[in-house]
């Protein structure tokens, strides 16, 4: 019945190609050929055909800059439904891409007369909306040690991955770019949301005694000024450029080769029974991301106290507000020794250990515990 109907339509109108569904990058739209001769459709349904045979009959290709018949047809599956030849692409059709479908009746089983039928499908991209911005670059301060190790670039929206290093530059005081300052990784360092990009300065030019540093010198030099520039051509995950470029200017001080020493931290104990924050003042700024994760608080029994961390004052102040009121008595601030400062020095271990200096002893335990006593309210 369906075959006969299709046969009739075919005889009247000839084959035509249409899109069934929407091109939105998400939905499973299909491309259909209607009006195929019923005998051929039945033969297609009953036979077993490989990809080459199917694509000879119906192929959907991306229309590129170059005209190339050798361009492979889209991956997908073919079937006959009610006399209609249906191509279901393996992946959702993408917005902004032009697709050309070609149906060639001469390649149908037994061959049919008629010229190839062509149709193009295209869902244009919405006009570029440059809304994403660089919200912040850590470290926040504008005086950095000569052996500064990395930057975190925080965006307001998920960004495009791949080719990111094209969009960052480090300019010297003369406005000229510093040559190859960054560690460029094929596998770029993003957080799971694609909103935070980690940018390492080339460690080969930071570490002493390595050829890159000895031959071309360190990336940053004490006493000089630099500007980190993030180009607005960097696109968000939707393909839109940034609203504006971002610049962070800073001067460079001496290298910091000292391990982090929690003995130098100043703790302001909170009031027992209150939810006021524990405030920890750090004599030098520490890594913003690690301050969120590698410092925490336990009660006297060692149970982790749930609460929120806030880092401020150019990463020299760590505040912890508990979800519930502070108990009276002793609590502990715990620090994982993997905590880093701006130059990658850890607790008890500098970034570079001079093995000929025996004074630098390494901390054995993984975490360090700093006790504090919650304050009693005045009577």
């Amino acid at each position: 019945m369906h075959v006969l109907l299709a046969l009739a339509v075919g005889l009247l109108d000839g084959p035509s190609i249409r899109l069934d569904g929407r091109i939105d990058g998400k939905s499973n739209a299909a491309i259909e050929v209607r009006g195929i001769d019923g005998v051929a459709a039945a033969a297609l349904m009953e036979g077993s055909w490989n990809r080459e045979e199917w694509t000879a009959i119906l192929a959907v290709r991306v229309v590129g800059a170059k005209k190339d018949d050798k361009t492979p047809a889209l991956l997908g599956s073919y079937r006959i439904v009610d006399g209609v030849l249906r191509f279901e692409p393996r992946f959702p059709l993408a917005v902004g891409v032009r697709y050309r479908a070609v149906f060639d009746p001469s390649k149908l089983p037994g061959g049919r007369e008629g010229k190839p039928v062509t149709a193009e499908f295209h869902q244009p991209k919405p006009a570029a909306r440059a809304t994403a911005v660089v919200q912040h670059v850590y470290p926040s301060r504008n005086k950095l040690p000569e052996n500064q190790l990395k930057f975190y670039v925080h965006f307001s929206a998920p960004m495009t991955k791949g080719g990111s290093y094209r969009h960052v530059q480090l300019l010297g005081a003369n406005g000229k770019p510093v040559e190859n300052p960054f560690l460029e990784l094929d596998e770029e360092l993003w957080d799971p949301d694609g909103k935070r990009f980690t940018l390492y300065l080339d460690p080969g030019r930071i570490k002493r005694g390595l050829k890159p540093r000895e031959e071309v010198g360190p990336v940053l030099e004490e006493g000089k000024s630099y500007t980190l520039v993030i180009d607005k051509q960097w696109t968000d995950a939707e393909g839109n450029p940034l609203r504006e470029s971002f610049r962070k200017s800073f001067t460079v001080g001496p290298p910091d080769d000292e391990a982090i020493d929690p003995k130098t931290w100043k703790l302001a104990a909170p009031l027992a029974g209150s939810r006021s924050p524990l405030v920890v003042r750090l004599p030098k700024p520490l890594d913003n991301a690690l301050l969120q994760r590698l410092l925490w608080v336990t009660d006297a029994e060692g149970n982790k106290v749930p609460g929120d961390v806030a880092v401020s004052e150019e990463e020299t102040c760590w505040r912890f507000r508990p979800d519930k009121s502070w108990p009276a008595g002793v609590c502990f601030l715990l620090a994982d020794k993997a905590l880093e400062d701006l130059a990658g020095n850890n607790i008890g271990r500098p970034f570079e250990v001079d093995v000929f200096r025996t004074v630098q002893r390494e901390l054995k335990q993984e975490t360090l515990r700093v006790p504090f006593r919650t304050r009693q309210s005045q009577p």
Partner: protein
Amino acid sequence: MQPRLRIALAAVAALALSAGALCAEETRLKKGTPDLKSAGPIAFGPEGILFVGDPQGAAVFAIDTGDKTPGKADSGLKIEGLDGKIASLLGIDLKQLLVNDLQVNPVSGKVYLSITRGQGKDATPVILRINQNRELEELPLKDVAFAKATLPNASDKQRRESITHVEFVKGVVYVSGLSNEDFSSNLRGIPFPFKEANKGAGVEIYHGAHGQFETRSPVRTFTAYDIKGETNLLAAYQCTPLVKIPVSQLKPGEKVKGTTVAELGNMNRPLSMFVYEKGGKDYILIANSARGVMKVTTDEIDKIAGITNPIRGGGTAGLKYDTIKELKKVERLARLDKDHAVILAKTDDGSMYLNAIALP
């Protein structure tokens, strides 16, 4: 204990032959659909098993490709405009495509590619291979036998370890990575078949510059090489030197210092490498970001010992190397068979091609 191999990085190929047939039970692979969140570096194990590093999902998958029929590698393989062809196959434009890695199945000689289709939330991992007609086809990931090893930081909110290289060496899948937060240096060895209990504790890798300044040193890429009967990893650090690390030292929780065997020049990043034998000698072929493809001799690699005294003025230990002038803009290379390699490279106009070459 696996049988010791005389020549190294035939490692993967040789292992496929020497390990004998592994049944499904032994590999602990189960039928299903691997929940790959991303497809980064890849490596082949025995019996057509493909290891896929998934940095986004913080995991390594072992996937049975079913590609187990011994075959001759296609030494005439050449595909021009590879990126355009892949983009068309996947129905996207070039900007939406990332080609992450290339490897060869040593059993069949077929070339596999690890791909990201799309950006942001819609990014989809895809594994493609090149069939005997030199056409690209997708490796189906539905209802395949697979196993998954989760890396320890899978549950962290923002911290991720970018997987820089994966390699299967004598029953162990080695994974190198670099964290997006701490300058850590974990190299994990995960015994295969994967066991629930062993997630592969990391080994901290250090580098001693001139024996004096010791730092943690994340590894960018590595390959296996047997030196006087002892399996070593030849590893390129993110801070450039090429080092050797005996596999026997890679014990979970240990701290290991690599011995510098070559300095490959500044402003340069090694991208991809393997060891091969030619005319009775072993060489390392290395693709670099800025200094082309190098053929490094392994002569006297066994004699290079750790430097215990400081050397001033940029003194370096070093294997000798030649730069292969004809090979330009090579981003990935893999051993195709005993006489050939396959390269993934870019032309001057930026389009990607894939080419089989005779080993230099």
